[in-house]
C-alpha cells in the first residue's frame, strides 16, 4: 500500500519540523517528506489541507480490561477508542485477571491486540507476582514475551527491603520500573484529596503526603539502585517539585500525569458525582497549576489518559462505594488541545508531551515523524471541534466530559501506514 498525505501542516517536535508539506508512505513506513520519490505512485491519497499531521499519540496507561474484566472493556473496544483519540501506541497496565505477571497473559494480550489491529500495544508487566508485593515476577520472561516496563500499580510492596531488591534486580537487566507512588498507610480508607472539599463533603481523605512521602522514598531507592524509573500519575505540586529536584541533581527519571489532572480539581466533588472518583484523587487548584507548570517546563515529559473504563453498575452507588477511574482515552487529543487553547502549551510542545515524551520515557519505538520511521500518524483538524460522546467507542461511558464541546477533531489515525480510525 502506497499512500500520500497532501498539504498537511506536518509537525514533528523532535526534529523541529513544522511546515505545510506532503508525506509519502510505503510498506508501513514514511519514505519521503515533501516531494515524492521518483516513480512513486500512491494507491491512495489523503487531501489534508488544513489538517495537522503529527506523530501518533503514545499513551502510557490505558486499561484494556482484558483478560478478566471484559464487562468493563475489551482489547478490541478500548484500542478502537484509543485510535479515535489519536493514539497509535499504548501501554496497558498489569491489573488484569489473572494479573499480567506471566508470559502467557502477555502473549494473550498481544495476540488480541494484533487481531484488533487498532493500535500498537505495549504491555506493562507486574513487578511482583500477583501485584502482591512479596515475590518478584519473572521479569526477564515477561520482557522476552513483550513487556516494556514493570510496575506494581498502587499496590505497595509489603516492605521497603523487598521493593529495594526488586529495583536492584530490574537494574541488573536495565529494565524500566514504573512507580505509582502512594503510601499505603497514609492513603488507607481515603477516597478524595484530604482538603476542604473532602472535609466539607465528609469524604475520607488521602493527604498529599501519601504521594510525597512515598515519592521521596522511591526517588532515594532509585538513586541507590540505579534503576531506570518512570513516575506515573503524579497528582501534587509538591510531588512534581520532588521530581524536579531529583532531575536537577542528575537523576535520570521521567514522569507522567493523567490528562484529567491537568483539567479537573477536587472542586468537582461538590455533588458527589462518582464520575470524579479517581485514584490517586483529584487535588487542589494549586496542585493542578503545579502539574500544568511541570508539563510546560518538561519536568513531566508525558501526558497520559489513565483510561479506566467501567460498566454502569461500577459507578452507580454512593461515591465511596464506586470504583475509581475515568474512561477518557477516546478524548485524548481533543481534551489535550484545551491546554493549547488555554495558552499553556504551544502545539508542538503538546505533541511532544503526547508523543516523543512518553515514547522516550519507556524507550518505545514511537513518537517520531521522520523518513524511515513507522508511519504511525494522527491527522487532525485544529480548527474543528469534537462533541464528546457524539459517538462513543469505549465500553465504559464513565466520562465526565461527555457533552462537552472540545477543540479539534481527529480525522485519521494511521498505524504502520494503515488507517485505523477515520472520523
Amino acid at each position, binding site marked *: 500500500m502506497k499512500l500520500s498525505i497532501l498539504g498537511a501542516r506536518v509537525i514533528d517536535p523532535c526534529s523541529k519540523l513544522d511546515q505545510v508539506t506532503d508525506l509519502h508512505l510505503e510498506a508501513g513506513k514514511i519514505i519521503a517528506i515533501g516531494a515524492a520519490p521518483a516513480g512513486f505512485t500512491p494507491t491512495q491519497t489523503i487531501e489534508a489541507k488544513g489538517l495537522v499531521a503529527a506523530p501518533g499519540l503514545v499513551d502510557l496507561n490505558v486499561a484494556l480490561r482484558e483478560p478478566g474484566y471484559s464487562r468493563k472493556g475489551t482489547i478490541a473496544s478500548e484500542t478502537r477508542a484509543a485510535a479515535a483519540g489519536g493514539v497509535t501506541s499504548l501501554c496497558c497496565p498489569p491489573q488484569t485477571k489473572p494479573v499480567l505477571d506471566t508470559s502467557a497473559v502477555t502473549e494473550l494480550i498481544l495476540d488480541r491486540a494484533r487481531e484488533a489491529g487498532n493500535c500498537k500495544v505495549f504491555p506493562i508487566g507486574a513487578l511482583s507476582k500477583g501485584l502482591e508485593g512479596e515475590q518478584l515476577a519473572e521479569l526477564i520472561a515477561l520482557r522476552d514475551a513483550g513487556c516494556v516496563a514493570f510496575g506494581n500499580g498502587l499496590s505497595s510492596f509489603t516492605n521497603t527491603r523487598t521493593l529495594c531488591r526488586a529495583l536492584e534486580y530490574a537494574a541488573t537487566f536495565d529494565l524500566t520500573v514504573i512507580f505509582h507512588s502512594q503510601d499505603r498507610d497514609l492513603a488507607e480508607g481515603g477516597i478524595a484529596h484530604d482538603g476542604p472539599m473532602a472535609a*466539607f463533603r465528609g469524604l475520607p481523605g488521602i493527604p498529599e503526603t501519601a504521594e510525597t512521602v512515598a515519592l521521596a522514598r522511591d526517588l532515594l531507592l532509585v538513586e541507590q539502585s540505579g534503576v531506570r524509573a518512570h513516575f506515573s500519575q503524579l497528582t501534587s505540586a509538591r510531588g512534581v517539585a520532588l521530581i524536579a529536584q531529583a532531575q536537577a541533581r542528575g537523576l535520570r527519571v521521567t514522569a507522567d500525569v493523567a490528562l484529567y489532572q491537568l483539567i*479537573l480539581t477536587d472542586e*468537582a466533588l461538590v*455533588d458527589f458525582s462518582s464520575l470524579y472518583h479517581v485514584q490517586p484523587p483529584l487535588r487542589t487548584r494549586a496542585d493542578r497549576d503545579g502539574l500544568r507548570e511541570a508539563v510546560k517546563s518538561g519536568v513531566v515529559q508525558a501526558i497520559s489518559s489513565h483510561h479506566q473504563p467501567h460498566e454502569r453498575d461500577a459507578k452507580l452507588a454512593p461515591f465511596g462505594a464506586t470504583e475509581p477511574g475515568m474512561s477518557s482515552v477516546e478524548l485524548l487529543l481533543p481534551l489535550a488541545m484545551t491546554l493549547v487553547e488555554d495558552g499553556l502549551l504551544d502545539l508542538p510542545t503538546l505533541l511532544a508531551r503526547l508523543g516523543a515524551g512518553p515514547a522516550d520515557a519507556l524507550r518505545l519505538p514511537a513518537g517520531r515523524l521522520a523518513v524511515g520511521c513507522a508511519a504511525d500518524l494522527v491527522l487532525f483538524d485544529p480548527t474543528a471541534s469534537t462533541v464528546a460522546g457524539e459517538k462513543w467507542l469505549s465500553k465504559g461511558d464513565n466520562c465526565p466530559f461527555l457533552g462537552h464541546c472540545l477543540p479539534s477533531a481527529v480525522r485519521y489515525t494511521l498505524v504502520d501506514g494503515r488507517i485505523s480510525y477515520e472520523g
Partner: protein
Amino acid sequence: MTPIDAKRPLQLNDQGQLRHFLSLDGLRRELLTEILDTADSFLEVGARAVKKVPLLRGKTVCNVFFENSTRTRTTFEMAAQRLSADVITLNVSTSSASKGETLLDTLRNLEAMAADMFVVRHGDSGAAHFIAEHVCPQVAIINGGDGRHAHPTQGMLDMLTIRRHKGGFENLSVAIVGDILHSRVARSNMIALKTLGCPDIRVIAPKTLLPIGIEQYGVKVYTDMTEGLKDVDVVIMLRLQRERMSGGLLPSEGEFYRLFGLTTARLAGAKPDCIVMHPGPINRGVEIESAVADGPHSVILNQVTYGIAVRMAVLSMTMSGQTAQRQFEQENAQ
C-alpha cells in the same frame, strides 16, 4: 474547563421548595426559618391528648436504615405517625462487598411498592444524594444521616433547641466540642449556624479530630477547652466513638475526658445561662460529666422532644414540595 452544573439544586423543586431533604448546604436562611416556624407549630400537637394531624394521610413513609439507630429512627416513626402517614421501618444490614447493589435494589423494590417518601440512613457520605439523583427521583428522600457528611434533621432540631432557649442566633457564641472529623452532626450544625447568622461559631478538639480546612465553615478553631468555652451561650457536645482510640487519634478515653470532657468546673467559664446540648447517645464520663448532663444547663432531653416536631416539619414540607413538583411535571407533560 469546569464541570457543567446548570442543574437546579437537587433538593429543591422549581418553586424553590424542598422536594428532598439531603443537606443544609445551599438552603437559604428563609427556608431554614420556615422549617423552624413549622416545627414550632407542631410542638403544640405533641402536647395534645390526640397527637395527630392529617397532613400525610394516605402516604407511605419508609424508614430505611443501613446503619443502626434508635433515637433518629424512632422519632422519624413518631413524626410520620403524628402526620397520619403509614410507616414502615426496615433495618438493612450492610454487606461490605455489595453495598451499592444492596442500596440500589432495596430502594427500587420499595419504590415498586409505591412508597411516597424514604428516610434513609447510610454509612457512605453522599448516599442520600445518590438515591435522590439516580435511584428514586420521584420519591421524596430525607437524609437521616449519611456517613460523615450530613445529618440535616439533627442540625435543624439543634437549631430549634437554640432558638427556643436563646430566642435567636444573632448575638450568640456557640461551641461544638469533640470529634468534629467524623461527625455529620457537627457539619450540619456549622452550616445551619452560619446560615442563620450566628456570629461566633467555635469548634474545640485536638488536631486529630479536626478536618482539614475547617475554617471554611466560618468557624474559629480552639484546641483548649477553657479558652474555647469562655463566655459561650451554647455548648454542643459530640459523641466520642470508642473506635477512635485506635489508629493514634487519641491515647485514651481518660485523656480525652481530662482535656475535652465537659465538667461542671469547665462549664463555669461559659455564660451563666448557657445551655448544654448533645445529639445522644451520651457517654457519661467520656465526653460529659453526669452532673452536667443531668444538670440545670442541660437541654438534652428537650432536644429529643423537638426532634419529633422538626421531623414532622421536614416530612410535611418535603412531601408537599415533591407532590407539587410531580403535579407540575405531569401538567407539563400533558
